[in-house]
């Protein structure tokens, strides 16, 4: 739709701008959520900020290691330009490891911490979907539905809007339950189950999906596993809390 934003002589990539705004919004959401749950907002903000930074650096360094021959004669290229050249999986692993060790070092209780982190993660995912929607890299499959988006004379499912709705549903459940939660971890597990369930449904309409050799949408498989695991843990934790009482 709008791959670049034109502001005077400047042309900015819409997706990049959305990612930066999304990171800021996610950190703010975590800080607020920690306040609502009466947790140490500063410490959780630092945990999320450190994970984000570690993920960014980790994604870049993983990419540099994989493509070292291209950087060997251009060491400056490691730090500039930064508009691309990241390995998502490497970044994710480094971010999780950094967050884990920060939590261990400061002896953060995992379940309440995850409860406070989940709104930030959802806001971040929402920003990614919005960036994808505004940047316009491929909407969904063909549709006759009135809410379809017409692009190049054909109407398509606005899959990114469906994803945003799934994130809003999960965020809404968090907000609705946060004052009356029955046990630590309930908000995290329920939000994860709802968002995974939403993506399980919506990814069916994506045309540029990540597919297996026999055409299965791989993201749907991951979402189904996440949803079932979250629901199972939700029931287990509820039982544990009930038996203790």
């Amino acid at each position, binding site marked *: 739709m709008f791959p670049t934003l034109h502001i005077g002589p400047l042309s900015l990539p819409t997706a990049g701008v959305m990612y930066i705004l999304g990171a800021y919004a996610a950190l703010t959401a975590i800080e607020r959520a920690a306040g609502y749950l009466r947790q140490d907002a500063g410490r959780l903000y630092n945990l999320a900020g450190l994970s984000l930074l570690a993920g960014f650096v980790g994604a870049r360094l993983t990419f540099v290691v994989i*493509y070292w021959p291209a950087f060997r004669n251009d060491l400056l290229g490691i730090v500039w330009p930064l508009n691309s050249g990241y390995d998502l999986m490497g970044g994710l692993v480094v971010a999780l490891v950094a967050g884990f060790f920060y939590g261990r070092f400061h002896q953060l209780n995992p379940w309440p911490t995850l409860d406070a982190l989940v709104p930030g993660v959802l806001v971040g995912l929402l920003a990614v979907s919005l960036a994808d929607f505004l940047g316009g890299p491929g909407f969904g499959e063909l549709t006759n539905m009135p809410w379809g988006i017409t692009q190049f004379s054909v109407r398509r499912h606005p899959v990114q809007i469906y994803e945003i709705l799934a994130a809003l549903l999960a965020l809404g459940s968090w907000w609705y339950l946060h004052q009356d939660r029955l046990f630590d971890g309930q908000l995290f597990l329920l939000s994860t189950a709802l968002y995974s369930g939403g993506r399980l449904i919506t990814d069916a309409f994506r045309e540029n999906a990540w597919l297996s050799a*026999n055409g299965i949408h791989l993201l749907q498989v991951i979402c189904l596993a996440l949803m079932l695991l979250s629901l199972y843990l939700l029931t287990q934790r509820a039982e544990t809390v009930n038996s203790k009482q």
Partner: protein
Amino acid sequence: MKAHLEQHILLGLLAVLGVTWIWYSQEPMDDPLGFGLTEAPIVGHLAPDFTLSVVGSDDATVTLSELTSRNGGDVPVVLNFWASWCGPCRLETPHFQELSLTYQDQVAILGINQGESAATIADFGVSFGLTYPLLYDADNGVNEAYEVFNLPTTIFIDRYGVVREVYVGAISQAVLQERINRLVKE
């Protein structure tokens, strides 16, 4: 105990529903182009087809669809839109040249000029020692079809003729290599 059983039945039911939905959403793989693809310069769509003349050769032309499986070919294509006055274009041009040699016969790298004369394009090719085809878009029709508003812009097209990425701005050698690697391995 009864509540425990009910929970397990509910989870089992959700698992069955989920697997059924995944199976129902499965894409037919006998048609690699997918269902309902239309030509558009955006990710997930068929790359708009064109035929352009190659600068520096008498009658040689390049037709995009003949390189991909849309019309008998079987290689991914990288379109690099450039102009000689564009600084970032000049920075990235050596990367295209080097990788066009590294991936010779595995990928087609095409340089498409924006709005300059054939003589300017030829001079640019000589000064950078380029061996990949530089195409002359006389009426800027291909630039318009691909909606190229910023230079440089690089478009990655898979072997089926589907746009996989639209990259705006100068691209580093490592990123270019990673993208080409991915296309070649598919």
